[in-house]
């Protein structure tokens, strides 16, 4: 049976074991119809021109893994932030692990989406927010909605700063050789509140796991959301990340995406502006090798005046790895005084590595500042000569310069231990033995 058929046919079984939240159920049924109609995207669709899912969807996946896998904390400790306290929402093979998690309802809510679906006190919020930001005709997001049951639920009430960062961690253990996961996160940050969130998908042994994730983020007036996606999975793991961000007046939502591994990663990062004086920051650093494939697909929808967006993506591609950057900026007629910047800079280390970069600016307002730039290059010989003249051999000099190229994406990381950790990972990925603590 084809995967699409399997996903459609399994929905009844899913419904039987799921909650009966009416609002959610209606959305699920409607979304399943969208997926049924559209199916998996193919390369015939412009937005999927350079990324093919065909090899992924040929396989047969376990959709409902068993509930009994335990993982010892010491085995996964290294994936969490060291030295600082965090809230943790941890999933093993898509199933919540209360032993590994550290949630709260003290002032703010950091808990499970299933809990929010099932408890009547959350009904209003679910009704108000669930699936509201998702672009309705996207088949993969619809597929996720059809099966939306579990994930992180974060609610920061007005005038509150979450003192601890929140880690959303998805581990897969490989007990199911092939596994299809569809986590769903709902994040609401009310007026004048702040939160830092780190999201990570990690397989603990190399196996065919595909994660089709949807995250909705609602940032109300004056809210500050600082979000980090760590994509450094094992070779056989694939990720389709659909993130939808609704921003209101004076809010700032920043998303850093660090992509250092995995088989195929597709990031659909969508921003919608619903008020004035909004700031949106999108930063990405990609370091890939072998036959790894990444596709960054961004959309910033400027629909109100006086807003800013900054996109800065850097990529370093070795071996036969492939990168795609497809950045769309849409400026509505009413969105005067928009400042929208987009930059995609790439280094191809090997001849067989490729990058397809496609900026799309659709501007309907006349008083705006929009710019985009894209570079694809190799390292400059003159610059290399400077390092070599100091006795640093060519290979090390190249690694050091590549490290320097990547480094500026790190500057805006607000969590120091995370910055240090990523810095170490960059050095490791690039094979830079800097001989000092970073």
């Amino acid at each position, binding site marked *: 049976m084809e995967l699409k058929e399997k996903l459609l046919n399994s929905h009844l079984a899913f419904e039987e074991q799921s909650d009966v939240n009416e609002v959610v159920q209606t959305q699920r049924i409607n979304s399943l119809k969208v997926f049924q109609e559209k199916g998996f995207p193919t390369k015939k669709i412009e937005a999927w021109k350079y990324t093919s899912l065909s090899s992924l969807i040929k396989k047969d996946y376990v959709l409902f893994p068993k509930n009994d896998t335990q993982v010892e904390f010491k085995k996964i400790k290294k994936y969490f932030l060291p030295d600082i306290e965090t809230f943790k929402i941890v999933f093993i093979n898509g199933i919540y692990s209360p032993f590994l998690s550290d949630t709260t309802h003290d002032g703010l809510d950091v808990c499970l989406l299933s809990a929010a679906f099932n408890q009547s006190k959350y009904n209003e919020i679910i009704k108000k927010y669930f699936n509201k930001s998702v672009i309705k005709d996207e088949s993969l997001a619809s597929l996720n909605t059809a099966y939306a049951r579990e994930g992180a639920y974060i609610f920061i009430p007005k005038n509150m700063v979450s003192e601890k960062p929140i880690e959303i961690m998805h581990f897969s253990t490989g007990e199911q050789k092939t596994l299809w996961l569809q986590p769903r996160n709902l994040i609401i940050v009310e007026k004048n509140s702040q939160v830092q969130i780190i999201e990570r998908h990690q397989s603990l042994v190399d196996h065919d796991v595909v994660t089709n994730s949807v995250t909705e983020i609602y940032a109300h007036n004056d809210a500050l959301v600082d979000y980090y996606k760590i994509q450094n999975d094992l070779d056989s793991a694939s990720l389709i990340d659909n993130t939808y961000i609704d921003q209101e007046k004076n809010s700032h939502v920043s998303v850093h995406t660090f992509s250092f591994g995995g088989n195929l990663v597709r990031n659909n990062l969508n921003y919608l502006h619903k008020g004035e004086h909004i700031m949106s920051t999108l930063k990405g650093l990609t370091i890939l090798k072998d036959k790894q494939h990444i596709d960054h697909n961004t959309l910033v929808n400027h629909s109100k005046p006086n807003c800013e967006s900054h996109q800065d993506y850097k990529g370093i591609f070795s071996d036969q790895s492939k990168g795609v950057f497809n950045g769309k900026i849409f400026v509505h007629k009413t969105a005067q005084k928009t400042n929208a910047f987009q930059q995609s800079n790439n280094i191809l280390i090997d001849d067989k590595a490729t990058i397809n970069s496609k900026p799309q600016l659709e501007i309907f307002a006349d008083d705006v500042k929009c710019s985009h730039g894209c570079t694809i290059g190799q390292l400059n*010989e003159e610059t290399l000569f400077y*390092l070599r*003249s*100091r006795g640093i051999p060519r290979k090390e*000099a190249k690694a050091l310069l590549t*490290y320097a190229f990547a480094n500026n994406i790190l500057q805006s990381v607000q969590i120091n231990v995370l910055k240090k950790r990523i*810095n170490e990972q960059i050095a490791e990925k690039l094979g830079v033995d800097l*001989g000092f603590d970073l």
Partner: protein
Amino acid sequence: MLTIENLHATVDGKSILNGVDLDVKSGEVHAIMGPNGSGKSTLSSVIAGNEIYEMTEGNILLNGEEIKDMDAEERAHKGIFMSFQYPVEIPGVSVTNFIKTAINSSRKAQGLSDMLASEMLKKIREKAELLEIDTKFLSRSLNEGFSGGEKKRNEIFQMAMLEPKLSILDETDSGLDIDALKIVANGVNKLRNNNNAVIIITHYQRLLNYISPDFVHVLHDGKIVKSGTKDLAHELEAKGYDWIKDDID
């Protein structure tokens, strides 16, 4: 220490150096002066091993050893240092970490283990003091956002740390105000000794007010057309380069 014989070099097929001869002994300071386009910077780059330039004829010997086929890094390991006119910015790598990497690369090439951290720190402090460098400066990213003066001072700091046998200062005075110039010159003077040598490449005489050269050479059309003592520099300053051109014509 350095012997250059009949050096010819081209870039993109264009001939820049047309037979340079130069002999620099230990303990000496040589100034190479000349108008724009005379080949000064090419000469320093060729000695340091920049592969953009093709050496078509001649020889370069360092302490009797032929270096013309060596890579830039290998020449650095043998004790050649070049201070750049436009040093490269390396975001995210501090001055200290860069210099550690450079020193340990040279040590590795010589079969030595990494320098002990304590020893490195001591040396860094010592040289920073010598060049009047605030240690805060050393934790900044290499050359990123540095002023012209800071960049040049940082070049001389690297020179101090690497302790080269032969240092080539390429237009080190350009873009420096008088205070920065004095600090840089003072640093170079402190690093001079009987076992090393310095070649100063410069358009103007003003750096030579602070670093006194033993010999001054004038480069014109890729050849050394006149050599003399310090007085030659003063004469050039007073009369300009046209005088030399007229003289050889």
